[in-house]
């Protein structure tokens, strides 16, 4: 309506576009930007850009990204003064549908329903986050600046990772960074204040009662606090995975950047932890470091042994409080399938959800017949493909929907007979 409203709208959109491009933008920064616009001459493009930089950019790495987005978003003419916000094309990236759904659920209020999982529940303290979500979920605006046109994106989405050209690889990488990674939340043992919580808060109630002469007129309540689940990614980088491992490692990188609690490992013949190598680095230097540290890249595969190593040395340290485990592998194993079965069984029992991602599963003719895959299958909760962007989106949605329901698991008897069976 008014000019200032218009600026707020545009600023929010600008912030969102920046966020998509990988700049870490908060709602607070957007508000800062709106306020600072009032104090500068918006006719002067340089000053306007500097103001934007000052508000949005927090590390040096983000500067070039900001400039690129700025140039294309605020076009040469200062149209922010009179632009009706009919942004070109509602033909958004297809990947955003899931978010819109999530958001509409999130607005349904404070009720905790255990069946729904608690991920949608929001507290006042999470306000900032929820505002962001709402912004994301709103009617999508066109990313006219996005390199991909709609149809090209559609093709790329369905294209198998193994067939990507170098340029498509780059586009895919950018696409991955934009995917919103969220994981289902678990209920913690901690409680936080909430107006309609399930539990009463004696301490707060008593303190408040002093204002009413010691009579507790108002009962303060608390509810269970939820925390995001731990995610553990174990990725196969052996020879048979060659066509996929590079892009999949970038995917692991993207997950690590996008989520708080991620531990990642890669294996060929032996297991290497790469969590620290991937974190807080640009993607190129991260990939370089992994290549330096992982010596069995593109070699043979010993899934069973690698998982055994994980189970004995790492499981206790990283599988806490209902972790979700992602194993990414095609199941070609040169080791002992019996060992693989045994370790998978153990891994499944110590994780909340055991997800196996197999790039070959994308092909309609694929059947998981290899001995390794056969040994592992009984212990997999979700068997999913990971061969193109569409499958990654499906995975992202799946992770976000992990709720309080454990998958049905049949107790698998251990596959060995005791040497001395006990006589009843």
């Amino acid at each position, binding site marked *: 309506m008014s000019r200032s409203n218009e600026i707020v709208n545009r600023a929010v959109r600008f912030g969102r576009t920046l966020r998509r491009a990988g700049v870490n933008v908060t709602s607070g920064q957007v508000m800062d930007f709106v306020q600072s616009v009032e104090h500068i001459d918006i006719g002067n493009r340089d000053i306007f850009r500097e103001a934007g930089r000052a508000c949005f950019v927090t590390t040096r790495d983000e500067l070039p990204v900001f400039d690129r987005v700025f140039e294309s978003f605020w076009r040469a003419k200062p149209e922010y003064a009179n632009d009706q916000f009919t942004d070109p094309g509602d033909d958004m990236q297809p990947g955003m549908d899931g978010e819109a759904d999530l958001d509409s659920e999130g607005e349904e209020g404070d009720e905790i329903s255990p069946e729904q999982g608690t991920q949608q529940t929001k507290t006042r303290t999470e306000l900032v986050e929820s505002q962001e979500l709402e912004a994301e979920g709103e009617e999508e605006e066109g990313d006219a600046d996005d390199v991909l046109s709609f149809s090209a994106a559609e093709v790329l989405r369905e294209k198998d990772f193994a067939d990507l050209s170098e340029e498509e690889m780059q586009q895919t990488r950018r696409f991955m960074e934009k995917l919103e990674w969220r994981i289902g939340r678990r209920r*913690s043992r901690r409680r936080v204040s909430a107006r309609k919580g399930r539990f009463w808060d004696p301490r707060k109630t008593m303190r408040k009662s002093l204002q009413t002469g010691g009579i507790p007129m108002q009962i303060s309540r608390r509810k269970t606090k939820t925390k995001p689940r731990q995610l553990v990614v174990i990725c196969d980088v052996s020879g048979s995975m060659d066509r996929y491992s590079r892009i999949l490692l970038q995917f692991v990188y993207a997950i690590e950047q996008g989520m708080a609690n991620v531990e990642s490992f890669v294996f060929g013949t032996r297991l290497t932890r790469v969590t620290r190598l991937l974190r807080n680095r640009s993607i190129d230097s991260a990939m370089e470091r992994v290549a330096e540290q992982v010596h069995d890249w593109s070699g043979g595969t010993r899934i069973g042994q690698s998982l055994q190593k994980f189970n004995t040395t790492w499981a206790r340290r990283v599988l806490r409080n209902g972790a979700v485990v992602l194993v990414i592998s095609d199941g070609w194993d040169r080791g002992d399938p019996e060992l693989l079965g045994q370790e998978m069984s*153990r891994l499944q029992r110590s994780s909340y959800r055991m997800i196996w991602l197999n790039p070959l599963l994308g092909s309609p003719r694929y059947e998981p017949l290899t001995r390794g895959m056969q040994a592992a299958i009984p212990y997999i909760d979700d068997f999913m493909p990971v061969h193109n962007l569409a499958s990654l989106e499906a995975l992202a949605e799946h992770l976000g929907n992990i709720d309080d329901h454990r998958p049905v698991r049949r107790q698998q008897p251990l596959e*060995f007979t005791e040497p001395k069976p006990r006589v009843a």
Partner: protein
Amino acid sequence: MQLNTVEQVQEAMQEEKYVSERSLATAIYLALQLPKPLLLEGEAGVGKTEVAKVLASTLGTDLIRLQCYEGLDVSHAVYEWNYPRQMLAIRLMEDRDVNDRQAMEQIFSSDYLIERPLLQAVQHKGKAPVLLIDEIDRADEEFEAFLLELLSDFQVTIPELGTIKAEYPPIVIITSNRTRELHDALKRRCLYHWIDYPNIQKELQIITQKVEGISERLALQVATFIHELRREDLYKLPGVAETLDWASALLALNHQELNEEIAGATLGAILKHQEDVHEIRSKRLGELVGAAASPSATGTPSES
């Protein structure tokens, strides 16, 4: 007891039947001298908690223990008001026409305060107590952050009463099983010591001191067996606590000699995973018992 040198610490611990490596004694000595909290990490059952108990009895002071768990908060770790009593008091005061100010002072006095371990440690009278914060890795990050504040100046603030500062800052021992990484900020405030499995001789010493009535021969066999067992690929290696359990179990069954049958039957005292028990019982048991029974293994502690 005077603890003025590392040797004295080691001897004092020895008197309490705790066999300590010199490195551990050094860490304890420094923790007392500096003074700084001591963070002990190690596999389950290597005697981390025991250090605090032994230290308390050596120093002739009280041990205050806080067992950590997820969701541990101020009301369980520091203090809590006794709400039922407070409510009752308010009801009674209504009849007696007490003015608001007096009422408040009364119901928020120490009479109505429930002291939890951390407040007890801060308020301890007469002598510095040993404060054991056990299995900190089970607590969540929120509690860890709270602990930082306490460890830096040993004071507790209760809004209704004011700040209570420790007259005798407690000697703090923190243990962790390393099921997760602790925050660097916490580690920075502590001295750190990793307690490893003892070598054969130390373990033998521990067994003979802790298990009464065990023969030198059986103790040696047990120590050797366990020592060899720890080289296997197992999900959970047996700790010292398991060794002692097992030695006591063998003694209770009146066995003065280790053989394959009795070892197989009592394996549950040292191995707690079905896969581990199966692995050892079906494949390696004979060999391990053989190694433990043969005298040649006794003179090779250098392999540790």
